[in-house]
């Protein structure tokens, strides 16, 4: 587990975002240190996913800033005006942040191996042979060595999601984002995906995840952030957040998972 | 090279001819759509019927018409039918017959899709209250299908109106024929064709707007 002395990797300050009149994020501050696993929890509509998507600029946000390794993501400030970076610059930054989606989003016209190789060859500029080697390594690591030539429609949901994780992690990102990656899966397929994520966490990958798998969050995360109504309502070590909820809202939210969490001890 | 002096007086002098032509085209399109809808409905029911022969005949009709150029159908009807002893059709009637048969094939596909997309529960609910087969069709299936297919109906009317331009090939005095006449008689090429183009565009747009209003009226019922 990463200590609080590890280098600061991601730093978000005062991020606000609205859809029309609806303010989804009302000033989010968040730090993620190198090697940390940070979990965002909260009711649906609390802004977790939106915030996650702001980090690699799938959503634009109005105010605040997000820094990765000290470099501002997505925008530059020029004589007090915020300008969006060019397509090439944004893409280069995105390549340093991996993302795994709820709905897998594998490219349906490519095999598992080709899905993993695409970013390696086209973004990282690796030769095909090397990219293939890396792809095979990661597909092996997520337990799909024998499925590398299969197309997404030939794979189960859990297998597709593991390919998606391999696709993201093969790019050697500084930070991996997981957006409710088990929510679209049949219950019996959830475990295989969580096992892969736990393996990645142990190997020191820095991860920021939005999840409703409270048991998993409690066991794997170093830091838990409870979001409510577009702000961070409470943050701290899992034990602290789960054992000593500071607000009635958090208590109410955790109450829904009561059986699972007490069972975990 | 590109110095052309417009002289629109030719158009004003022939304005009545243009308007008559436009109305003739619209009339032929609407009539063909109506007859086409009747043909299309019968063919659609035939395609969904239990009887294999009926199914096959309906399929053949649709494929034959849709894969043959309309101009060829127009000629077959206009020059071919008299060979078979059918001589009482004039140019306009012959063209409307062709366009109706043509519209029938396209409407058959529209109606078939519409009929198959009606939720079974509607029919079952109608059965449950004791409606007879024809009553179920008349009061449940057809009204629902009408609303589902309304947008394609308006697209088809616009297509048919544009297709009436082919009547020019057998000298029916519709818009295209009239423009060509004015062009040939006065040598005002740009004026004649720009007028025809504008009239077609405005009419297509007006049909689209009018039918969208009708759609909106029925859209609430789903």
């Amino acid at each position: 587990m990463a200590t609080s002395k590890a280098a600061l990797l991601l730093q978000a300050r005062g991020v606000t975002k609205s859809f029309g009149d609806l303010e989804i994020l009302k000033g989010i501050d968040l730090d993620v240190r190198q090697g940390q696993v940070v979990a965002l929890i909260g009711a649906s509509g609390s802004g977790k996913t939106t915030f996650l998507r702001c980090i690699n600029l799938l959503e634009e946000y109005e105010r605040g800033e997000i820094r990765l390794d000290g470099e501002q993501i997505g925008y530059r400030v020029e004589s007090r005006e915020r300008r969006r970076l060019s397509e090439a610059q944004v893409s280069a930054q995105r390549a340093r942040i991996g993302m795994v989606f709820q709905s897998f989003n594998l490219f349906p016209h490519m095999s598992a191996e080709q899905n993993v190789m695409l970013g390696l060859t086209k973004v990282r500029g690796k030769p095909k042979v090397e990219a293939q080697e890396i792809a095979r390594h990661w597909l092996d690591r997520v337990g799909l060595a024998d499925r590398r030539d299969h197309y997404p429609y030939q794979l189960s949901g859990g297998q597709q999601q593991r390919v998606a994780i391999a696709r993201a992690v093969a790019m050697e990102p500084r930070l991996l984002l997981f957006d409710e990656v088990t929510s679209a899966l049949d219950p019996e397929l959830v475990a295989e995906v969580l096992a892969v994520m736990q393996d990645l966490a142990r190997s020191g990958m820095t991860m920021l995840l939005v999840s409703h798998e409270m048991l998993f969050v409690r066991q794997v995360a170093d830091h838990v952030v409870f979001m409510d109504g577009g702000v961070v309502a409470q943050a701290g070590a899992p034990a602290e957040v789960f054992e000593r909820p500071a607000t009635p809202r958090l208590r109410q939210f955790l109450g829904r998972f009561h059986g699972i969490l007490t069972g975990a001890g | 090279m590109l110095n052309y002096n417009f002289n629109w007086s030719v158009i004003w002098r022939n304005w009545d001819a243009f308007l008559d032509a436009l109305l003739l085209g619209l009339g032929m399109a609407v009539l063909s759509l109506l007859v086409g809808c009747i043909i299309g409905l019968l063919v659609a029911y035939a395609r969904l019927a239990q009887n294999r022969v009926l199914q096959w005949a309906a399929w053949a009709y649709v494929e034959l018409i849709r894969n043959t150029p309309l101009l060829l159908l127009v000629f077959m009807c206009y020059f071919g039918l008299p060979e078979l002893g059918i001589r009482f059709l004039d140019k306009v009637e012959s063209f409307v017959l062709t366009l109706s048969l043509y519209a029938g094939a396209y409407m058959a596909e529209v109606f078939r899709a519409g009929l198959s997309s009606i939720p079974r529960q509607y029919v079952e609910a109608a059965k449950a209250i004791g409606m007879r087969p024809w009553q179920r069709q008349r009061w449940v299936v057809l009204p629902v299908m009408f609303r589902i297919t309304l947008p394609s109906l308006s697209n088809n009317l616009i297509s048919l109106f544009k297709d009436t331009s082919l009547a020019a090939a057998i000298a029916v005095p519709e818009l295209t024929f009239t423009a060509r006449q004015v062009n040939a008689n006065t040598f005002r090429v740009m004026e004649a064709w720009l007028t025809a183009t504008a009239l077609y565009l405005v009419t297509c747009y007006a049909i689209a707007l009018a039918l969208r209003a009708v759609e909106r009226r029925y859209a609430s019922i789903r």
Partner: protein
Amino acid sequence: MERGTFLYEVWVARWSLLSGFGITLSASVLTIAIATLLGLILGIGLTYGWRPLRWLIRIYVDALRGIPVLVLILFAYYGLALFKINVPPFWAGVIALAAFSIAHIAETIRGGIESLPQGQTEAAKAIGLQFHQRLAYVIIPLATRRVLPPWMNTCAEIVKNTTLLSIIGVVEFLLSNQQAIARNYLVLQFYLFAAVVYLLINFTISQLGAKLERRYAHFRY
């Protein structure tokens, strides 16, 4: 074979019919090639273009779809001659047909791209692909599979529309049959013969389109 029978007359007219068939084929292929290339460009512009550009293309597409092809063909035929642009009727016809079909293909392409799930673009962004790379490796390959069946329909429409070139005197397949009829008065036989030939071409195209549609039906996103 006896003089006056259908087969005999087909044999007599064989070279003219074959040449007509060739003209129909070349007009179709040329129109399809031009319309597909420019339609693809306009379709991408219609989806991703800078706003004023998108409006311009939208006006073009909607206008062209509101004018009968025959009017376009006649306009091109008489209009180009007026400006002393010396093009043979064949090319005037192909230009008009292509201008019309471009609008249809552009609209099909836009629909195909917009029907793709947003997640595909997002996944491509997330691994750091730039706009042109997303287009080349993800959007176009996927949209192609969606657009192929309606594109095949447009191809069949184009083949049928080449008959309109006969009206400006291009001796394509329909006109070559009519010329045969003018000599031998076998009206029904030759029109039926022409219908069967068009039917075979278009039925083949539409069956191919249906086959492609089934082939990509299993795609999950």
